[in-house]
């Protein structure tokens, strides 16, 4: 969910390869590699796009359960993944710095949630394989 390059960015990248393929390229082996990469991107992007809404919904609810129905949790529903990633970075840094028992418990709960998120995201991408 915190991956660089948005869906429109990736779509444009695929388009650039298709355009280059149509126009011819510097050498066949290189061009074949580019086309196969573009094909792989389309499959993975489709799987990611299909999974994203339910992942975000699940993650938001779980995060709210950890942080409470406060302002801190409300941004989960609003923020774009990149913004959400940034806020989580800041939050984890604050919890590490505080290092009191409550902060450590919250950090542990956040990490467990992030692990589950990673597992679900990879499982969703594996559908493309």
């Amino acid at each position, binding site marked *: 969910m915190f*991956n660089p390059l948005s869906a429109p960015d990736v779509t444009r990248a695929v388009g650039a390869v298709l355009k280059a393929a149509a126009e011819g390229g510097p050498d066949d082996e290189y061009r074949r*590699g580019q086309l196969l990469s573009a094909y792989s991107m389309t499959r*993975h992007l489709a799987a990611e796009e299909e999974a994203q809404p339910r992942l975000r919904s699940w993650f938001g609810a779980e995060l709210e359960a950890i942080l409470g129905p406060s302002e801190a949790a409300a941004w989960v529903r609003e923020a774009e993944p990149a913004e959400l990633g940034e806020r989580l970075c800041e939050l984890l840094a604050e919890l590490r710095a505080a290092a009191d028992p409550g902060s450590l418990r919250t950090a542990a709960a956040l990490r467990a949630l*992030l692990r589950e998120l*990673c597992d679900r*995201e990879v499982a969703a991408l594996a559908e493309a394989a």
Partner: protein
Amino acid sequence: MTAGAPEGEVGRRAAEALRLLVGAGVLGEDARATELVQLEGGWSRQAHVLTVAGAGDERQFVVRVKPPGALLDTDLRQEYEICRLLAQHDVAVPAAHAFEGEEGNAFGGPYYVMDRVPGSAPNVWRRRDRELLERNWEQGGSLAEDLVDALVRIHAVPPEAVARVLPRRDYGAAVGHWAAVQEEMALVRDPVVEDAYAWLGGREPSPGPPALVHGDYRIGNCLNRDGRITAVLDWEISYLGDPIYDLGYISLAYEAGKFTRPGSPLLGAVAEREWFLGEYERRSGRPVDPEAVRTYAVLAALMLIAILTTGIRMYADGRTGDVRMAWTRFAIPGLRQDLTALIDY
């Protein structure tokens, strides 16, 4: 391309590489280039196979080029020098003959010329290659034997000789280096990655004697033929440091062929984990602390993410049109998952 003198841009490159070899005394004045073929693009280096005829026989060389905007901004001369050094220390590397660092050469970037060694490199992300590697293990593990033996030999190269060629990078410097690359190149911040760097901050292993670290040690960077390793390649991120890093790197699930689905259950797709680490310890005489291996596996996953992030940044900034750089965004989730498992989130 048919045999005969290569023409045009290819011909200019072939002639230049040939002149370099003749100048180095590797070939006689009567040698002539009959073919120059670029291999499938590497991620940070380009490779061309040069075929030369002369004195009634034929030889093949590899021209290894650092192109402009290479993924890894590492020093090609260091890579050339370490290959020269390793050949004197019983490590299986292609003989490196001559280096060209002048700007404006025909290949568009610094390059060196080395022997072409027979053999092929497996791709552990292809199921067929993984199955062949697993069969080799079941039938005696000749590749595993060679892989652990070559690593022991690499780590046994005298550190004072390595220090004359490569930079020294202790644990803190290695962590700091990749953290700085990640921070500079990232398009987005990643909470798992940043938390993993923080985790490494309190995990410095007890430093042992420094040694030559390959940095990218895996079966895919080894040529093999008939079940034996013929050469260890790709020294571009080697340095002098804690050799246990190479064990952490090769123990990553990613290096056993995991992408979004599990790869081989074998370490690096070649050997049972306990066997490999145990044999390394026995043959090298270096104690292997499983917690140090775990720490370096985390650093290795972060290094891979930093390198992928660099490629993604280069693509996003228009510094390369190679779409594989953008494609690697789909490799990051699997590595992030490995981090959460290794750190035991």
